[in-house]
């Protein structure tokens, strides 16, 4: 338990004063991948919370463990070599990791649902989209086919599929990528979930379609009050849609804050690196400010701070002790020099 403090601070960070029970509370979650008989940690000691009707953005490079984290929350890791090794996931008053498979399935697609990255391949090509939306409704609400179809039609209208009453009987291959992602969203909303997890929902789409889909998600959140976890590697997308942001690096949250504060202060050198690597729109640049080096391999994590080999501010201290997260109101930064660095332009 290296980050006992991080946990306590972590739970305060998202809801600094409220006594409300959070909708989702992840405590010290550790995930490992089974590799040649060995368990290799991929997500280490992760803690965060999501309140009802909030939007949490999780940002990070590929391989930072963000997708595995939400797959673990959702319960979709079974059958893969990845498993949760310790920790708790409280959802709506229950520890999901203690539930039986059947109890978990009763929550999947009902209280909690997920939108995936690839709209082109995430729908079953042999069933009509209406039937695919109805499947979850009928499974969880035990209603008649007719009622489910009415509901599916409403959902398609809600996600703004034009001519929904015709489209409901179309197959996925007859729709464009953006429309398929809308169908995915309709499917995820089918049973009015309390929590909607969107794993890079716009990455595979054209930029213009991306904006429409993000707007749709934001609109749905306003209408329904569903809490959302939005995963992205695109800070711009996160800034547009989320109240809270968690930045992941090497299976840890290195910085988390309200979106506003995060962009104001940029406490962690990694977050700063991410933002500086976005090319400016209004000036000519010869070089992109890329972060030097690469994400370390999981079996060769550095001693001390996991970002230290790539960090321009690293000191001897960083190479010895893992940093303890520092609290600054709602702002947690896993860096020894967070106080000194924040707000300072580099």
């Amino acid at each position, binding site marked *: 338990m290296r980050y006992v403090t991080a946990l306590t601070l972590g739970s305060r960070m998202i809801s600094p004063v409220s006594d409300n029970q959070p909708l989702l509370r992840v405590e010290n979650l550790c995930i490992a991948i089974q590799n040649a008989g060995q368990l290799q940690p991929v997500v280490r000691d992760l803690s965060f919370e999501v309140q009802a009707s909030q939007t949490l953005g999780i940002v990070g490079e590929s391989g930072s463990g963000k997708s595995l984290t939400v797959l673990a929350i959702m319960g979709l890791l079974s059958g893969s070599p990845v498993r949760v090794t310790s920790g708790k996931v409280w959802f709506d008053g229950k520890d999901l990791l203690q539930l039986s498979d059947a109890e*978990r399935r*009763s*929550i999947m697609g009902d209280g909690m649902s997920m939108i995936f990255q690839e709209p082109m*391949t*995430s729908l079953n*090509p*042999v069933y009509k989209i209406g039937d695919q939306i109805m*499947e979850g409704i009928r499974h969880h609400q035990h209603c008649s086919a007719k009622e489910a179809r009415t509901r599916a039609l409403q959902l398609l209208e809600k996600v703004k599929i034009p001519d929904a009453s015709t489209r409901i009987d179309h197959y996925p*291959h007859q729709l464009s990528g953006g429309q398929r992602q809308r169908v995915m969203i309709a499917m995820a909303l089918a049973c009015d979930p309390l929590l909607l997890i969107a794993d890079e929902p716009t990455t595979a789409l054209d930029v213009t379609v991306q904006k429409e889909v993000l707007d749709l998600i934001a609109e749905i959140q306003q209408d329904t009050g569903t809490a959302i976890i939005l995963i992205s590697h695109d800070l711009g997308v996160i800034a547009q849609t989320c109240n809270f942001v968690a930045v992941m690096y090497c299976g840890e949250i290195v910085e988390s804050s309200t979106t506003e504060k995060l962009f104001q202060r940029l406490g962690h050198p990694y977050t700063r690196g991410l933002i500086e690597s976005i090319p400016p729109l209004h000036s000519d640049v010869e070089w992109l400010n890329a972060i030097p080096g690469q994400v370390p391999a999981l079996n060769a994590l550095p001693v001390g701070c996991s970002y230290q080999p790539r960090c321009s501010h690293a000191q001897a201290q960083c190479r010895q002790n893992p940093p303890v997260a520092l609290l600054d109101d709602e702002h947690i930064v896993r860096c020894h020099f967070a106080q000194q660095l924040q707000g300072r332009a580099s």
Partner: protein
Amino acid sequence: MIAYTFKRLLTLVPTLLAASVLVFLFIHLIPGDPAAILLGDTATPEEILALTRELGLDRPLWQQYVLWFKNVLSGDLGRSLFFDTPVLQVIADGAETSILLALLTMFWIVILGIPIGIVSASYKGTWIDQVTSGFAMLFASIPTFWLGLYLILIFSVGLGWLPSSGFPSVSDEGGWTNMRYLILPSLTLAAPNAALIIRLVRSSMLDVSREDHVRTARSKGLHPARVAIKHVFRNALIAVAAAFGFTFAALISEAVVTETVFSLPGIGRLVVQSILRRDYPVIQGVILIIVVLYMFVNLLVDLAYAWLDPRVSLS
């Protein structure tokens, strides 16, 4: 779909023409004189010549072909040289055995191949999968004639449970219980094909289960068995349906061997015997019917394919 079916049936005409020419030519390439075979060892050259002339076999090949083809168009497949009865009659006599054998074999292939394949894929990597895959591999590799002989040895000679040869018609005494004569032959015929279907169902299900839409199905909270059947097997069926066309082709050739091993009065054995007797009209008639049948099965497979996969359009 009706237009497509009609179009496909039209393509039957040139295919049949080409097939009939090929068959006609190949048969006449086989050395040996039907008249000599019919008359036996004691025949004089004059008698053979007379019979050859009587049968019209002395005419140029193309004339023989045109004559035969004209008759086929009017529905007459000619007369068997050996039996001296209409070819259609000879084929009809063997049809009952062959059709029942084929149906029973298909029954075994579906009943064994599909469920075992599903179980094998669902328990991938466990001992269940290893045992079923092992047996599938074994049966896919065993030659039909060898398996047939061993089944006879075990179940007819050893245990005495089932008859080893022949097949009295189901309209004879015994009625449908005569089907027991077909159990060993149909199992022999089904074994390698069911094994292939097991392996195909297993591998296509494993392919499909890695696809993204299966994860979507699981994320709806559906029961794993429902995901396996409705989302994995249903999509894997597309590849399996295509394989049934090949299975049918394999059945035709393997039936020849099986009917011979079990002395069944079917069309497979008829072909072999007719070739030995140089009974040209029968060989031509049977092959013509097999070609038509094969094309129909392929048409059915294509229709099934389009029905199973909405992305395939028939046009």
